[in-house]
């Protein structure tokens, strides 16, 4: 199967620039996230479908892994210490989970009050989570696929130009039934989206793809 062959796909969706998306992944299913045009950050949160008080935890994930970036083989750990999913393919090689999502409020602090009324990932998360009975209170530090945030030994922490090329993808295989929530990042004030947000594609398969 080539990475562009979708004959075995259960589900395909193009998520427009700046928009949210969510769906339940069954245990064993694989979500492929494709950076269709390149340099597009994809913010993501995972919740246990059966009990959403169990959710993705960035700090548990990094502690278990012992290193700071999300990459092939990373197990995504919940706040109860269980593996929710694994990264089973990755043609990009660099993903973040320490920088959180953009919000109107943090944009105003970072880039000036004039940026407060720009669409942001947290707005997307709030709207998408509301479909599942969840609220802002349920938003924790998220995954940022295709977002390049090197942390140097002195602690310098910088969102730099994304390294994902058009068509790069990452596969996430579920180890339990998970509610997978995405915000296709609308940020225009830093390089995470090349300053110009673009669409992404998601594909769900019944088993890990190649």
């Amino acid at each position, binding site marked *: 199967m080539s990475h562009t062959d979708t004959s075995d796909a259960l589900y395909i969706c193009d998520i427009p620039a700046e928009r949210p998306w969510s769906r339940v992944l069954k245990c064993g299913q694989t979500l492929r996230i494709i950076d269709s045009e390149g340099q597009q950050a994809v913010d993501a949160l995972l919740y246990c479908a059966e009990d959403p008080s169990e959710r993705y935890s960035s700090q548990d994930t990094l502690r278990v892994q012992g290193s700071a970036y999300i990459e092939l083989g990373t197990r995504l750990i919940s706040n109860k210490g269980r593996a929710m999913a694994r990264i089973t393919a990755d043609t990009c090689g660099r993903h973040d989970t320490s920088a959180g999502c953009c919000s109107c409020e*943090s944009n105003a602090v970072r*880039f000036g009050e004039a940026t407060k009324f720009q669409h942001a990932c947290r707005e997307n998360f709030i709207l998408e989570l509301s479909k599942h009975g969840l609220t802002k209170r349920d938003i*924790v530090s998220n995954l940022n696929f295709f977002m390049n945030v090197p*942390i140097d030994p002195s602690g310098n922490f910088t969102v730099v130009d994304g390294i994902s090329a058009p068509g790069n993808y990452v596969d996430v295989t579920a180890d339990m039934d998970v509610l997978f929530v995405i915000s296709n990042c609308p940020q225009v004030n830093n390089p995470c989206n090349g300053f110009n947000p673009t669409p992404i594609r998601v594909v769900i398969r019944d088993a890990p793809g190649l």
Partner: protein
Amino acid sequence: MSQTQQQIEANRRRYEELRAAGQELTPKGLPEPTALDGPPISPNAVIHQEQVPAGWYATMRLRRGEALRIVDDSGHSSVSLIGWRDEDTSERINCADTVKVQWSAAITKGRIILSDMGRVFLSLIEDTSGAHDLLVGGSTPASTLAAFGTTTRNTQENFLAAASKLGLDVRDISPCVTFFAPVSLDEAGRFRWQEGRKRPGDFVDLRAEMNLIIAVSNCPHPLDPARPAVSGPVTLIKHRAAMAAEDDPCRTASPEAARAFAFTDRLFA
């Protein structure tokens, strides 16, 4: 909406200017670390003092302008902290915004801890240590089992108990800051524990910039190689501090900090 080339270039220029200020100018202007025998707290400024034994936790309300001194009495403890705004607990500490807004995962004297609403939660007005962790978080049942072969008291369960006593629950528990936890990264991005960065008597003074509730957990950091855990008690001293003046070093550290303080001040205008 699709961005014009002109907008893209203007936004990139602003980003580069902010980055240069945030990673070059601002760190040079930060105050020196506090000396171990640094400013004593005047006895009549002390509101409350207690010791938290190793493995245990405490909760505390701080009004705006009050401060908490946390002292690592033995030099072998780490203290994890989460917290909420008193009047609306949906607003809470946000580690990701704290590192992103300040362009650094290393918080030291002169830095701030932000809430998720673009406001200043706590300011580090004194800090002898400068070695604190915002990335790895606290210990859990699984981390103590892996480290010690048996599940010991841990930060995850302490936070659950603390939150419950405040009428909150697991949904209110965010990623935490851990003080006196010298975690750094090597070039490959692997976490390293920096031996020799912990001293008996290390302390931080955290000034509340809004009315808040905090939970602290005195459990060994999961990367602390001490086996078995040798952590001791920590002392908490709640005291009255001076409010952040116009020239307060935390407020003036960067344009981002100045904006966060201005947004916080509006809550009390």
